[in-house]
């Protein structure tokens, strides 16, 4: 089951996990990545989305997506 799909995301960067009761603070780009992952997009698609929306190179975006996913795993969210 996709744990991410259950998360409640607010526009202010506040994320609540109704299953565990954990709350998170997420940066603006973090929210963009989280939304993309929640919709089931791949890391590559997510990185490309970042490149389309933000001033960032594909290389940096890829690296950051990998890192971010690592963090989600770390928090038991992915």
């Amino acid at each position, binding site marked *: 089951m996709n744990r991410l799909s259950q998360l409640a995301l607010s526009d202010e960067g*506040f994320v609540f996990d109704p299953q565990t009761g954990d*709350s998170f603070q997420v940066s603006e780009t973090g929210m963009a990545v989280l939304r993309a992952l929640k919709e089931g997009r791949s890391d590559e698609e997510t990185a490309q989305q970042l490149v389309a929306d933000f001033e960032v190179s594909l290389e940096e975006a890829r690296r950051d997506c990998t890192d971010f996913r690592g963090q989600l795993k770390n928090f038991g969210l992915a």
Partner: protein
Amino acid sequence: MKDLAIGVSGINAVDNPGPGVGVARSLKEAEDLNARIIGLAYDAMEPGIYMDWVVDRSFIMPYPSGDGAAYFDRLAFIRDQQGLDVLIPNLDAELPLYLKRVGELKDMGIATFLPSMEQFKLRGKDKLAEVAERMDIKLPKTKVCTSLDQLIAAVDELGLPVMVKGSFYKAYAAYTTTQAVSHFHALVAEWGYPVIVQSIVSGEELNVIGVGDGAGGSLGIVGIKKISVTALGKIWTGVTIKHRPMLDAANRFIRELKWRGPFELECIVKGDDVYLIEINPRFPAWVYFATGVGVNLPARLVRHALGVDQPLAPDYEAGKLFVRYSYELVTDMVKFQQAVTRGEVG
């Protein structure tokens, strides 16, 4: 009086409560002040943030251990947005910052009523001997330690059990040298040097709360005894008392040191002998006890700070009971979210 915006910190009414909620509640009860309470919090989970009948609006503050400039920028922001007529800082860790920059607060149009830097230093646990002498009361044998060797030597000299205390906060009883050593390490890690070792005096633990006017006069004092305390040593039930030697010592403290602002004296009393354990240069968490027996010290402090005339300090009755209790409130996540993302609530 027009409505008064009063900043109050220490609204962490948890199992080791800060004094802020008691201060705020006292101010709210002084109807002449028409107080609007601005809570200054350091964590989104401080209960005061959610107690909207006591604290009208709350702001998350940068830590006072950080850059003082950021702290004062934040105060200026709050003043511009909400008004800030008076400020009552209630946490030990904030006081040095406020004392150092008290002139700036004044320039910002924010009134305070705090001890001077010299007075603040006197209350340091390594200076208590001098104060006890000026108050003409006793002090348990005390050693100031800045190394493990000294700690062990001090424990040897004083004999077990001893109290091991941090320079700012926290005190632990140690019944073995090993315990003393582990408390020492914990205290140094959290609060730095020095660490104070004190022999334990047996007797009744009595406390006094008061406010000095800075010229040797008293704005009121109340003596209490803690009947029961929590596992953390915080008062749970208490009773007002009138132990003459202790109250006299408290008045000497105000007079001799020309103490300015709030204070709490922690004493141990054995017959007529009074031992000084600790001076807190701020209100204690149980400040509302005094208010409840008719001596509203926070309100009296605010009036005095603003130069408003008020009658002499009222007396109180011995034998009034204080019962702390737990109670819950339920609210939704929105306030929490605001505290986290915006740093302000209300």
